[in-house]
């Protein structure tokens, strides 16, 4: 009944509503899309706004930076004027002294300025620059040129009182230019006495180089060598110093080791497990010739002093033109502000350049580091040949100790017994002299191995039985055939013959195998003996070659022993300037 009622119900209204809802939903979706589109537009607009704000901020920062730089530049320009005024006011006369010193040195070189002119000019400057070390130096220099020893001495005393180190360096260099070597040497000693042996600066290193090259005269009174001796003595008293030196030298010496060439000792390489040790000690022994060549090359080389002379003049120039300690704070400020101006007000860049400027000439070394670097790393240390010679001479004791240790450490590894490993044969020799013993032992081993190899290669019991068994069976078969056995007898005969044939066939095979085995072992015996003999011969050669190469260490020690540092240093300025080494 109910079903009937529904089948006739009018659903069109519901359908219409559903269509309407569907349409509304479509409209709603469309609206959502529109909203989405607008949100995207807003998002894009926000991004654009952000970009613009960022750009604005960047431009603002740039503007601020530019403005700051402009301000910095302006301030730096103002400051530099003030600083220079202050410098001029406080130390202007120093500049005058410097200019005069340079002028006098040049005038003296040229020789066309009247002595009176020099004298008048310098005395005035002395009054203008109280406290400045260069002023009395200038007076002393003028007095010296004018041949006024009393005045020169008085002025020198004052100069030394004001700045001993700089005065000593100044007169070292001036005397060097004037070729007054004896005086130059005394001033050098005075200058070096003012130095800290643990903290030598670039100037001192160049001065030592000049001394080593003989540019500062011959140390006939041992002034400089005494100074060096004092430095070394003080350094040696430091805990661990000598040990560290020996270690440094050992490392430097070992760096000259070269690998053994791949040729030679072909049997030992192949038939001795001791070879890696032998190779190592041979490389160690060959080091002696390398070191001797290295030292000989240094001591045979003639030194050129031209570039060194230029460096000395550069030091003199810097010394007379550089600012004094009192001026340093103002000069640093001046330099910084100059950098600010040069970099358009960029203070951070200026600060970086100040740092580079300060550290460039701030390389310090201790005296022994200078010696090691000069002797063993001339490429990186830039040391001259003279300094290399001088460094080796002064470091002789440490080099000798280190070298003796290197030699002994290599000798410690010398194997007393050298293994010989040929196939299954493993034995030892000390000097390669036990050939007959080894060959005998090898033969015994080969005999044992051959016997072991032959042992299983024999006829089996059945195969042995086949011979006599076959004959008996054959006879029995023949008898059977003879007594009317007929075919059966013949068959038994055939079986007997077959067994005999089998015996001889197997026997032949076994004999062949045994012959082959014997031949193989004979070959092993022959080849093995040959290898053992050849290896032993190489052991003899190796021991001889090692002894020869190792004995060259004596030449290195003799070489080092004959270097007398004092004699070397004293004779530096001799015409040959070479140390006698045989």
């Amino acid at each position: 009944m109910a079903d009937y009622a529904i089948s006739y119900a009018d659903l069109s209204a519901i359908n219409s509503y559903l269509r309407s809802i569907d349409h509304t939903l479509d409209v709603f979706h469309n609206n959502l899309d529109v909203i989405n589109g607008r949100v995207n537009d807003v998002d894009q607009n926000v991004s654009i706004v952000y970009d613009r704000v960022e750009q604005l901020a960047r431009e603002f920062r740039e503007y601020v930076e530019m403005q700051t730089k402009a301000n910095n530049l302006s301030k730096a320009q103002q400051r530099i004027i003030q600083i220079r005024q202050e410098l001029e006011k406080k130390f202007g006369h120093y500049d005058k002294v410097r200019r005069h010193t340079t002028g006098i040195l040049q005038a003296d070189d040229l020789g066309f300025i009247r002595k009176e002119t020099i004298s008048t000019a310098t005395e005035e400057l002395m009054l203008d620059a109280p406290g400045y070390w260069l002023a009395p130096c200038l007076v002393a220099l003028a007095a010296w040129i004018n041949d006024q020893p009393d005045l020169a001495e008085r002025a020198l005393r004052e100069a030394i009182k004001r700045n001993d180190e700089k005065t000593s360096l100044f007169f070292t260099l001036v005397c060097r230019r004037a070729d007054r070597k004896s005086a130059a040497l005394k001033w050098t000693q005075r200058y070096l006495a003012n130095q800290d042996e643990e903290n030598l600066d670039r100037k001192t290193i160049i001065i030592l180089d000049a001394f080593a090259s003989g540019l500062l005269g011959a140390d006939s009174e041992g002034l400089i060598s005494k100074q060096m001796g004092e430095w070394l003595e003080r350094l040696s008293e430091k805990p661990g110093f000598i040990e560290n030196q020996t270690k440094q030298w050992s490392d430097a010496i070992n760096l000259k080791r070269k690998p053994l060439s791949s040729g030679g000792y072909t049997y030992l390489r192949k038939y001795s497990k001791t070879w890696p040790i032998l190779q190592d000690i041979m490389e160690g022994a060959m080091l002696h010739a390398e070191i001797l060549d290295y030292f000989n090359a240094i001591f045979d080389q003639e030194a050129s002093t031209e570039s060194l002379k230029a460096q000395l003049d550069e030091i003199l120039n810097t010394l007379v033109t550089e600012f004094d300690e009192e001026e340093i704070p103002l000069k640093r400020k001046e330099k910084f502000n100059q950098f600010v101006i040069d970099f358009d007000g960029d203070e951070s860049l200026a600060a970086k350049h100040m740092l580079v400027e300060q550290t460039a000439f701030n390389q310090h070394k201790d005296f022994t580091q200078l010696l090691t670097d000069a002797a063993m790393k001339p490429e990186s240390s830039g040391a001259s040949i003279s300094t290399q010679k001088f460094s080796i001479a002064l470091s002789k004791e440490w080099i000798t100790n280190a070298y003796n240790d290197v030699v002994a450490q290599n000798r410690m590894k010398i194997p007393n017994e050298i293994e010989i490993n040929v196939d299954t044969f493993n034995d030892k020799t000390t000097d390669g002299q036990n050939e007959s013993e080894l060959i005998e032992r090898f033969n015994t081993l080969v005999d044992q191995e051959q016997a072991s190899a032959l042992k299983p290669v024999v006829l089996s019991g059945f195969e042995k039985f086949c011979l006599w068994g076959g004959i008996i069976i054959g006879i029995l078969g023949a008898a059977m055939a003879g007594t009317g056995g007929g075919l059966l007898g013949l068959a038994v005969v055939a079986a007997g013959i077959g067994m005999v044939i089998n015996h001889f066939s197997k026997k032949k095979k076994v004999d062949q195998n045994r012959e082959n085995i014997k031949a193989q072992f004979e070959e092993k015996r022959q080849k093995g003996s040959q290898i053992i003999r050849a290896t032993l011969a190489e052991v003899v050669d190796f021991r001889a070659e090692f002894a020869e190469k190792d004995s060259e260490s004596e030449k290195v020690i003799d070489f080092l022993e004959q270097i007398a540092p004092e004699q070397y240093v004293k004779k530096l300025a001799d015409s040959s300037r070479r140390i006698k080494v045989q």
Partner: protein
Amino acid sequence: MPKPMLNRPQTQAQTNNILSTTNSQPKQQTQQMNQMQIDRLLRKSRSKEYMQALHQLDAGGHVHNQHKVDEIINKIRSEFPDLELTGILLGIVSICYLGKPYEVHTLDITGQIIEHYKSGQPLPGGLEKARSIAMRGGYAFIEVYVDCCRAISSNGSVSVIPG
């Protein structure tokens, strides 16, 4: 077995060891002298007298004489008057010229014994490490210490081999 050239009773060696006159000496030494100072002292070239004394180790019959051995040990001691060697120096090894089968001889400082060793016989008391260099290094003799060997050349110069 080693060939005893001269042997003292163990108890005597312990009580009458000239290199350890008092038990407290090594401790005092540690306090007075650090390792670096000891190393520097032992790096110095050996004297001619010391070299001559040590050379007698292999000089045949007279080493049978305990008095001579005492003299040699006294000489070693007087070479380093500021140093107590007991506990530092184990002994001395050098090549033996008695000929085959003997290879090396040793001076055992603690036991005050001179002994000769054949090929293949191991050296006692940590001295074995110096055997090869004593035989083949070309040095006059090798001083064997706890932490190293010191190879002494015929001119008295010293080479140090750590380990």
